[in-house]
């Protein structure tokens, strides 16, 4: 039950999550996956196998930009939000809020 819930939500909103996470500071892939796990209190997890293709796709659309940075002998790729990505993120946030509000109203959560 939890797994199905996890997959459905992730599918539609993974892009929003990633864009939000790199909004304030550049982060590398492992950090992004860890942040998702921490902030969702373990409810959302991303394996490398789905995370990286997603990152590459966002990058190919020009929403985020990755750069190799060397730090204490290890090279990591840090992703940051592009101006283009910023616009998309703003739009997605509004979209999500409207969607969530609509769900709340329909499902009667607000009145409960």
């Amino acid at each position: 039950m939890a797994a199905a819930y996890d997959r459905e939500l992730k599918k539609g909103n993974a892009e929003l999550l990633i864009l939000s996470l790199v909004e304030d500071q550049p982060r590398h892939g492992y950090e992004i996956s860890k942040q998702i796990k921490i902030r969702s209190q373990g409810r959302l997890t991303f394996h490398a196998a789905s995370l990286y293709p997603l990152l590459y796709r966002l990058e190919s659309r020009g929403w985020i930009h990755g750069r190799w940075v060397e730090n204490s002998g290890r090279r990591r790729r840090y992703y940051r939000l592009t101006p283009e990505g910023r616009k998309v993120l703003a739009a997605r946030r509004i979209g999500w809020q409207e969607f969530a509000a609509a769900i709340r109203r329909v499902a009667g959560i607000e009145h409960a």
Partner: protein
Amino acid sequence: MPSYEHDWKPAIRERLARLPADGAWQEHVIEEFEQHLEDCYRELCASGVPEEVARRRALEELETSERLTEELRKMRYPAARPPAVLGDSGGNLMDSLWRDVRYAIRAIRSTPGFALMAIGMLAVGIAGNAAIFSIFDGLFLRPLPFAHSERLVDIDETAPKWNLKFVGVSNPDFFAWREGNQTFEKMAFFDTGGGTMVISGGDAERVSAALVTRDLLDVLSLKPALGRNFTADEDKPKGPKVTMLSHKLWQRRFAGDPKVLGRILKVDGEAYTVVGVLPQDAVFPSNVDLWSPLQADPKNQGSWYLNGVGRLKPGVTIQQAQADLTRIHKGMIEGEKNSVNNITSPVLMPLRDRYLGDYRDATNILLAGVGVVLLIACVNIAGLMLVRGTARAREIAIRAAIGASRSAIVRQLLTESLVLAALGCLLGVFLGNVALRGMLTLLPDDTPQWLTFGMDWRFLVFCAALTAASAVIFGLGPAVQAARLQPRASLQEGQSSFSRARRNALGALIVGEVGLSLLLLVSAGLLVQAFRQVMKVDPGFRPQNLLTFRVWLPSAEYSKPEQRQQFFQTLLERLQALPGVQSASAVSIVPFDGHSGTFYEAVGGRVLGPNEKNPVVLYLYAWPTYFDTMGLTFLSGRSFQEEEKNRVVVNESFAKFFFPNVDPLGRSIQCSCMKKGDTLEIVGVTRDVKHYGLDQEMRPSVFNPYAQRPRDSMVLVMRTGVEPHSLISAARDTLRGLNPELAMAQPRTMVERMDRSLWARRAYSWLFGAFAIVAMVLAAAGIYGVTSYVVSRRTREIGIRIALGALPGQILGWVLRSGMGLVTLGVTLGLAGAFATSRFLETLLFGVKPRDPGIYVAVICGVIFVGLLANLIPARRAAALDPMRTLRAE
């Protein structure tokens, strides 16, 4: 230093093994995954998890290899454009297009054989069409290089009663028409000829000259480049001798010096003052060096000798103009019962048609040939794309299965087809230009100067679009179908199945291709055979080892007939004395060099019926030794002697027409150009010479002795014992030795003259042959490709048959039968087409019937043989299949 506690790479590589190799990008992915796994592992270890467990859990990050590969493939080969989102400008269209193009090039490079074939076929189709069409366009479609050239018309007179289509315009007619017409803005007349030009301090040079009325520049809407046009006074009889130089002559002889105005040139011994230089665009009349005023006398009834050109008033049709001139022409007859204007009448036609009518049949046929090759190329490309699309159904199904949308697949295949088409077009344009340049060298030297040839870009685009469209349409069909199929069904189908509908489509393409190339081969066979027949025609003389050149004597310097006769007599003696010359003689016109006609009556010979036409007779003046030197055959009688001024030699056609049942020797004839009562006696009859071309009818002809009317221009003919070209400079020195102000014109061997007269037939016959062979090669490639493909798709079926005991010979026969069935059907349809269309060739054929059985049989055998060969290779491959291997491969 290695800072990792584990080497993660082998594990990562193993899981990515099924991704297509992609160099740098893959390395980048591997490194990033490696970092991730290392981070994960270290964290787990730090939280107290045992190393081995930490390692396993880190590797779980990669999930299964299918999942990872699928995710990455989705990313690398995106199935769809990113979803439209508020604020998304969608500005990366160029990126995705570029990605498609790169992928397309990769896909094309992975099947180089297919790519080469498709590109080659496109290129051949486009190149041939573009080049031939450019010639056609230059000859018939491009506007002439004059303002409003559609209003320019050729003006001439016709005389059906004399059996002459064009006779030229006479002085009185030209004056009457010019004054009385209401339909022309302007009208001009001219006569072309030539002279020997001498500029003080330079060599004598043979130049071509036109005597023109002063309106010609206005008719063409041109202004002099330098100086002025002729004045009205200069264009009156006995007016001052003035001239305008062509732009070319001005550049060549005077280096474009503006001080040329006022200079004096000697042409045929007479002094002309240069008053102007013609603009570069003054290319009509064609290839003329000098213009001088015609100075025509309206009272001179003389002969019909003028060419006319007029500019119609805007909105006036040729028919209206012709009616206008006919009205004036008939008005001149009133009161005069025997006026020649009863016989002649004005005839108008577009300028271009008058000069290019001869080329039209040949170019139309060539254009049709090109169209067929283009069609075959399209059909072949269609077949090729159909085969390829089918072969890729499985790949497409996989891509659809892993999430590629149909639009993405279609776009990808579209890009691939377009990249192929673009490469084919580029090569085609290049080859087309090369071919056009080659064909232009085939055009004769006397092609009108006012024609311009160049690649027609609109047509090129048309050809490119047509072939590309066939590539795209037939490439997309199977792809769209595959993408629409349930991926699982398509995958499970494996390689063995092959839909009946598609096999029928391919079969129809093969049948069409074979039919079209058979049609083309039959036509080409007929044309080439006709050319060979023409080459076999006996010209009526021995053309080998004959050198000819023309000499004009300036009329001022050689005004008396005795002077002219003396000059040529001396020249002939000196030429005769040159080492290597066996005999030398002279004639007014050599074979293939032109016409000069008049009318004769036979005294006591044939009496013409009321509706019978008196034929135009070719009359020539010759030295008595001419018949021997040229190698003509006497059927009876002998040549005239030098002193026999009123004895003539006639040809076989003349004798047959005028003296059908009697021996012409000793009979008298009368020329319309002679005084009443004067007659000529026939002393010899020769076999016909093909004077107008090997493929042309010979007219009756009369050879008159030179002494009868010594002319100022003759062609010298030398039979040589050595290679004739080697004598040109010795002959020129001999001429200069006699008179340094004389020029040698058109030094050519008789064989060269004969070849030039056949250029058009040679050019279109061999071009057509080349098209037919290209068509056959394309068709063979098509048959081979499709049969190979059918065999490869039915490997499983063949394997089962062999496993069940079929012998290799039976398999061979089975494949051949199915392939040859299509070829036979194509041959049958092609034959029907050839039978129906061969009559269009009739006007171009010579000595061969449009349904010549020999050609048909040879072509049918050839096509079947090529078809057999193209089928045999894949059939043998099928027969040699190892059943165990094929079945296991499934």
